[in-house]
């Protein structure tokens, strides 16, 4: 029995879309990091304290 594993080959369009999604996710996560940093600067040491 021939049990060769099958591989998926992405088309150029699928590669392009995947790359765009990956970049969007990276930008969103980066923005979240920056947001947390800026809020920490604004709120000071008690960043998780709430009035």
């Amino acid at each position, binding site marked *: 029995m021939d049990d060769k594993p099958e591989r998926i080959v992405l088309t150029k369009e699928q590669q392009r879309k995947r790359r765009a999604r990956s970049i969007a996710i990276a930008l969103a996560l980066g923005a979240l990091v920056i947001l947390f940093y800026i809020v920490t600067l*604004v709120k000071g040491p008690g960043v998780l304290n*709430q009035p």
Partner: protein
Amino acid sequence: MTDISAVDNRPQGGSLSAINLVSEAGVADYLALMKPRVMSLVVFTALVGLVLAPTHIHPVIGFTALLCIAVGAGSAGALNMWFDADIDAVMARTAGRPIPSGRITPREALAFGITLATGSVVVLGLLVDWFAALLLAFTIFFYIVIYTMWLKRTTPQNIVIGGAAGAFPPMIGWAAASGSISIEPVLLFLIVFFWTPPHFWALSLNRTGDYARARVPMLPVVAGAAETRRQILLYALVLVPIGAAPWLLGYADALYGMTALLAGGVMVLLSWQLWVQGSGQQAARHAGRLFGFSILYLFILFAVLLAEGVWAGLAGRAMA
């Protein structure tokens, strides 16, 4: 090793080619999943609640709150599209959405929606206020579970009760700034709540066939167009004093009061024209006109409230 081209991912039999292994969704498709037009209305009404709250909030914290509310609204949109993919597919207005058109799979939409919902609530709680986060979580729950999964397919009062989900954002904005709620954000809630039925029923009058095909019990499908027009008029009449309530109770100035009464009067006039017209092309035109004006109505009222709130804030700082 055997290479399989991923050109055609539709089920064709065989092993790996029998399932859609490769996502073909673009970033724009995921953004469409979030219903950006609904998000913009949610953010605007939340902004008004934030600005009108008596407690000053740092602009960065305010921006964070609005961002979380926007993402929370987007997650609710995505989860709604996930659940309603079957009826979206049979309605002309929604057949082009990402899931019925095959650009995004239901599982991807579900994962996306849950991730955004969880993230928005947690970030809002951690960085802004836990009470506001609780309200946001409840709003998302209400929209998905109470409205989308239960009311929408079971009762003609679906958008009356379910409309509460769209009315919460000003309360969330207020809570984000002040940590609590009071009578003023409740008035903003009531304005959106009583605005929702005439707004959506005006739309559904021109989409009755779509809703009937999808077996969604919208009021025109269940009770007929005449009864729907009558109910629209009744809600428009009730909306006039509710829209003016912030001024009548002393929370807004005369400019807002006059604006609310005038805009409410136009809503009543358009609703009356629709009621009197009966059926046919003219009635369809009146329904479309009412739907369009209803969007303007809400925007105008909240814009004037926002302007008054900003002006009062500037004046207060000038006097201090």
